[in-house]
């Protein structure tokens, strides 16, 4: 199993370690609910070094990124970040990702741990005809996420970057505890917070100092368990559950990352076709009307007919009810519509509700 540069520190803090995408990662430290609520009310620190990083450079870096993604990377000025996707010609997902504009000829792509090798093969396999160089830098990078309303207060004394100057989906380079870092106001929790990238070979001091300085303010180390409940409450996609190479960007209800006016891109004809003909199914949020938890792959029925399986499903620590995401036939994919989920042996009632399930109010 692969280990991040913080592995020993997780074990020292009592992290319960599991295998995830070939990495030994902490799934929880103090308990999923406690960790979840710490991020919603104070702060939490995540090791997300298993994520992948790919650098695209060259004269045609922008044109190349534009070809591979549905969102409009031309709108990015250096210092900005965008949520987008690597799309197949069928407008399904190779992966979802963040694109950082470093400069007019330099873009930094952050992809999912589960897909690093596949993504890099895809990226490297589509450079033909573009004057670009692509480099998989995943092994060199460590990444931490500091999330929660107190994130800025905890991080500011430890960095020379003026954090209040970094708006949501922006980044800056500077030093954190003397280590060269790229810091962006991004995350996978629905809270304010930062993602900190460093190529420093010995970044442990960033983790230990954030824990030391943050703990008196209520910061906790957070495992993959709460990472999943936090992202789902905020309806942030999980590749393999909610999106995949079998689901299109429109079916995933991610029309907002498709910018047709930007010109041609991989998958565009299928997007246009689906826009013209309408969708057959769509990803929606649901809540369970009965006790229990609807987990991924549980069968889903509309009017007695099996139509799909639960994509993501969990107990929401904040809302204290079972929530999830599911692809439903378009006629059933409307807020208020009722359907059934087979939980082990019995069918439980569920209802389509508006998403995101949680949205913070103090948006920066």
């Amino acid at each position: 199993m692969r280990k991040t540069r913080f592995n020993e520190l997780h074990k020292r803090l009592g992290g319960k370690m599991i295998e995830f995408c070939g990495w030994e990662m902490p799934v929880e430290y103090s308990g999923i609910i406690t960790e979840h609520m710490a991020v919603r009310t104070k702060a939490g620190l995540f090791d997300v070094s298993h994520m992948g990083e790919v650098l695209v450079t060259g004269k045609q870096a922008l044109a190349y990124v534009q070809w591979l993604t549905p969102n409009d990377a031309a709108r990015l000025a250096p210092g900005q970040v965008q949520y987008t996707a690597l799309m197949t010609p069928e407008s399904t997902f190779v992966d979802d990702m963040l694109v950082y504009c470093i400069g007019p000829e330099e873009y930094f792509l952050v992809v999912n741990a589960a897909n690093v090798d596949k993504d890099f093969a895809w990226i490297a396999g589509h450079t033909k005809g573009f004057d670009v160089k692509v480099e998989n830098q995943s092994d060199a990078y460590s990444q931490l996420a500091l999330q929660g309303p107190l994130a800025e207060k905890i991080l500011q004394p430890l960095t020379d970057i003026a954090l209040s100057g970094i708006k949501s989906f922006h980044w800056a380079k500077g030093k954190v505890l003397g280590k060269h870092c790229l810091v962006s106001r991004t995350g996978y929790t629905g809270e304010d917070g930062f993602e900190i990238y460093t190529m420093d070979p010995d970044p442990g001091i960033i983790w230990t100092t954030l824990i030391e300085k943050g703990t008196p303010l209520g910061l906790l180390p957070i495992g993959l368990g709460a990472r999943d409940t936090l992202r789902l409450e905020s309806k942030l996609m999980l590749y393999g559950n909610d999106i995949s190479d079998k689901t299109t960007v429109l079916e995933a209800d991610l029309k907002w990352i498709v910018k047709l006016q930007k010109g041609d891109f991989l998958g565009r004809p299928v997007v246009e076709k689906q826009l013209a003909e309408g969708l057959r199914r769509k990803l929606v949020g649901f809540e369970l009307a009965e006790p229990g938890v609807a987990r991924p792959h549980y069968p889903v029925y509309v009017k007695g007919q099996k139509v799909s399986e639960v994509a993501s499903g969990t107990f929401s620590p904040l809302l204290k009810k079972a929530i999830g995401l599911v692809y439903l036939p378009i006629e059933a994919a409307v807020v208020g519509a009722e359907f059934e989920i087979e939980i082990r042996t019995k069918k439980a009632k569920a209802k389509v509700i508006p998403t995101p399930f949680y949205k913070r109010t103090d948006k920066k």
Partner: protein
Amino acid sequence: MYPNDFRYTKEHEWIKVAGDEALIGITDFAQHQLGDIIYVELPPVGKELAVRQSISVVESVKSVSDVYAPFSGQVVAVNDELAQTADLINKDPHGKGWIVRLKIKDKKEIDGLMTAGDYEKFLEGLEH
């Protein structure tokens, strides 16, 4: 950690015998493995259970697990407090977090269950 007067199963249930009845719960090891428990499905009082039949379903945030009857018997009581506070199993797995009380059909089935010493050895084996 594991009370000496309890018996245990490889599925991580504990059994506390009192006369011809026994309380059943899940062990501290099991609650720790499951993490935050949020919901417990309880059987109806009066239900007859065969050995190894599912008694109850315990849902935590991250997983779901069956609790099996360690011996055959009839449900005489269930822990109603778990309906509101399922995390009693996390907080006090060997006490207030009990799940059901069964009337024992055949005491010989109890004799075959692990002692605290056996169970601790069994757990050591799991960690290697």
